[in-house]
């Protein structure tokens, strides 16, 4: 699609992802900047914006982490311009420090913070509900209930943000972010405003006594919104039959609408997209009913606000919520139909599918053929054996987390970005065995550097292996400060990982090509011995560009991949390549093994480690 998925005139109809729809809304609102650190399910928002940044004339960046991304967006807003920042739910934890202050200061230019939550934890360490952050930070939270609405709402929230001088949280979830629906494009507006620094130290410098005054004003603003949002167009009430009101909040409305069709009932329905603060007028409307069913995913955020409103009004309706709908995992139309059927007293039998009938092996994701992480794990494991150690394997978040699975089993814990170093240090202070911490390159820039400085300053005996594939691979190859290019592929300065490590004061720093397993093994063995003897941190950077990126570039240049093959007569069937190295391109075939040419990436590491020297480049004789 020329110009990207969200480029087009008003009136264009396109099947867009929820995330692309949000991005289009931001374009229509005339943003000046978009910032993000990638994270599933939020990543495609800024990816889509990057594709059209030149066409519509705004600035896009991949920031070092979410805190920096939010801070940059705040700065843009202080220049009177509109900005969007997007992050996955746990990203908001990292950005929460500036977020809490932002609640007090408010904004000048419209500022929309997209939080992409992950009910069911499809690709996350938890399923935290970030609507609660809105309450905590006094920042209103809005939740669309479909792809078109996501576009329209994103656009309008910039106006609302400026009208009330407040940042807003636009909350989406995996199912909305990653589902496609039809979107009709609107006009792209270019607000004709000049960039100007809005100097106002009493407002922006949160010092006593100004901060207490701000706290008071913030509470007033939330109350004003609680009143005004009753008539906001994305909240609506529909008359219906019976005396039980159904309240559907945000994304849950997708399921409620379908469940009501399935059940063939039409109760009175209140659809709410301003989930915090829950509008006063709507609460009053709801409290006209004796029975209220609240449908929302994860935490009872709307339910609790309604209970408070009922209590303040001295009313005692029967309010159903989390006792009918699960608090863990995500909803679907069937779960919602089951809960609604109970509340509404109608019959519903969820359909049952056929069983699979055979026991199936699980299929966890795997490191790709040619992945440098696999070679690095293999080398580090050998190094630990040669150093006669049984290390604690501290691990972090990224593709390399797959080292958790057999045959490597080299992740004793993974926590949150950068924690391999932090938690690893706590363990290393008291552990007799060495701690080896794996951290990806993007993760190192995001949250690893303060940990490393701590390791130097407080003298921790920890081996840090930076699994450097030169991009943020897990989320789809976004560039980071060590990549050497920017979001549009344009050249950028490269921040050196080894240079940073040395500048932090680490004395043992070695860089090895990950494919060179013997060098990587020897360097790591030296690092383990150094850490043992000196009680100080050591850094090994295992470098190999992501195999997927490498293959893509080879294809673009028209270069052929030299695949490898097994010389059958030489293969002794020892299984090192299949069982211990576990490349998905290598399979057993009877007594010997075989390399699948369509999967082989041509890295040649299997040829290096084969004890019988039975693996050679295809086309060469042994």
């Amino acid at each position, binding site marked *: 699609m020329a110009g990207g998925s969200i480029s087009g005139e008003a009136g264009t*109809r396109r*099947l867009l*992802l929820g995330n692309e729809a949000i991005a289009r809304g931001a374009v229509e609102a005339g943003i000046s900047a978009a910032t993000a650190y990638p994270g*599933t*399910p939020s*990543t*495609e928002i800024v990816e889509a914006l990057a594709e059209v940044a030149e066409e519509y004339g705004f600035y896009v960046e991949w920031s070092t982490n979410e805190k920096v991304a939010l801070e940059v967006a705040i700065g843009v807003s202080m220049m009177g311009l509109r900005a969007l920042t997007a992050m996955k739910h746990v990203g908001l934890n990292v950005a929460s420090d500036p977020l809490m202050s932002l609640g007090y200061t408010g904004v000048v230019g419209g500022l929309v913070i997209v939080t992409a939550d992950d009910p069911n934890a*499809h*690709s996350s360490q938890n399923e935290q509900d970030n609507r609660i952050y809105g309450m905590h930070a006094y920042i209103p939270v809005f939740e669309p209930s479909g792809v078109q609405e996501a576009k329209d709402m994103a656009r309008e929230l910039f106006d609302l943000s400026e009208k009330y001088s407040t940042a807003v949280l636009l909350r989406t979830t995996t*199912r*909305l972010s*990653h*589902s*496609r*629906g*039809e979107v009709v494009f609107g006009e792209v507006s270019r607000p004709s405003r000049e960039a100007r620094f809005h100097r106002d130290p009493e407002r922006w410098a949160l010092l006593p006594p100004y901060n207490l005054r701000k706290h008071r004003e913030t509470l007033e603003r939330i109350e004003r919104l609680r009143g005004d949002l009753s008539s906001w167009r994305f909240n609506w009430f529909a008359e219906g039959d019976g005396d039980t009101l159904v309240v559907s909040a945000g994304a849950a409305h*997708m*399921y409620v*609408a*379908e469940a009501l*069709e*399935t059940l063939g009932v039409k109760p009175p329905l209140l659809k709410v997209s301003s989930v915090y603060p829950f509008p006063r007028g709507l609460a009053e409307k709801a409290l006209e009913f004796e029975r209220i069913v609240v449908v929302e995913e994860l935490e009872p955020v709307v339910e609790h606000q309604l209970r408070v409103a009922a209590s303040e009004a001295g009313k005692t309706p029967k309010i159903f919520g989390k006792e009918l709908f699960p608090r863990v995992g995500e909803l*679907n*139309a*069937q*779960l919602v139909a089951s809960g609604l059927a109970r509340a509404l007293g109608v019959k519903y039998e*969820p*359909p*049952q*599918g*056929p*069983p*699979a*009938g*055979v*026991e*199936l*092996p*699980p*299929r*966890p*994701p*795997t*490191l*790709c053929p040619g992945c440098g992480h696999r070679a690095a794990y293999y080398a580090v494991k050998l190094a630990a054996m040669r150093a006669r150690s049984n290390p604690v394997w501290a691990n972090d978040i990224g*593709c390399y987390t*797959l080292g958790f*699975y*057999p*045959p490597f089993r080299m992740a004793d814990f993974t926590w949150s970005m950068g924690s391999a170093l932090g938690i690893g240090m706590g363990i290393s202070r008291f552990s007799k065995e060495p701690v080896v911490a794996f951290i990806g390159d993007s993760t190192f820039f995001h949250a690893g550097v303060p940990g490393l400085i701590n390791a130097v300053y407080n003298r921790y005996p920890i081996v840090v292996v930076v699994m450097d594939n030169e991009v943020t691979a*897990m*989320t*789809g190859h976004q560039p980071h400060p060590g990549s050497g290019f920017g979001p549009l592929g344009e050249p950028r300065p490269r921040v050196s990982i080894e240079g940073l490590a040395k500048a932090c004061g680490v004395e043992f720093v070695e860089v090895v090509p990950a494919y060179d397993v013997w060098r990587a093994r020897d360097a790591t063995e030296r690092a383990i011995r150094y850490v043992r003897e000196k009680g100080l941190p050591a850094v090994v950077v295992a470098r190999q560009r992501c195999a997927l990126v490498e293959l893509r570039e080879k294809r673009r240049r028209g270069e052929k991949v030299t695949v490898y093959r097994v010389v059958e007569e030489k293969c002794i069937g020892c299984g090192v390549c*299949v*069982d211990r190295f*576990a*490349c*998905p391109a290598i*399979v057993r075939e009877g007594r010997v093994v075989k390399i699948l040419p*369509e999967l082989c990436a041509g890295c040649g590491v299997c040829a290096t480690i084969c004890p019988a020297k039975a693996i050679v480049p295809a086309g060469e004789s042994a």
Partner: protein
Amino acid sequence: MRPRSIVIAGVGGQGLLTMGSLLGEALLRQGYKVSVGEVHGLSQRGGSVVVFVRYAEYQPSPVVAPGEGDLLVGLELIEAARRLPLLSRSGLAVVNDFLLPPPAAQRVPSREELVASIGKAVRSVFIEALPLAEKAGSPVAVNMVMLGALAACRSVDVSLESLKSVVSARFRGAVGAINLRALELGYEEALKKLGEEAQG
């Protein structure tokens, strides 16, 4: 009309997302409201992947719940079997006759076991997509063969014509030609198999 549900099951990297969005566009052209539920992130690295395509006269939700699917398109036997419970008991499974054992898996059922248990659970047809894709010009076009096969199934309302028009709008030149050919070959093969099944 209740929403109709198509489940596409396979292994990350087999081109399932492309199938989902092409199907979605084709159904849009046919005048339906459409939701395509995708999976992004880590599971795309060779993991088990499922994509949902749903359509109706009103906007359906993007998730297929157990027992709801009208059609299961499987690009690999284990993954097709894994998603069988999403299919309604009267649903149809169209499955690529191809077994890809997960790396380092301990016990893997045989091709015959998988074919038999899928066949026992629901109405099903098995298609050897790889030779057809190669005949069309590229082994990568397996997903297009299966998409064509899907258009031959009367349990959903996807027409070959609308699929062809979205495929030719999306892919130009040689790739476009290969994909169109793959669609047709898959369609014809499925028609033949469905005919045999109806008789036998």
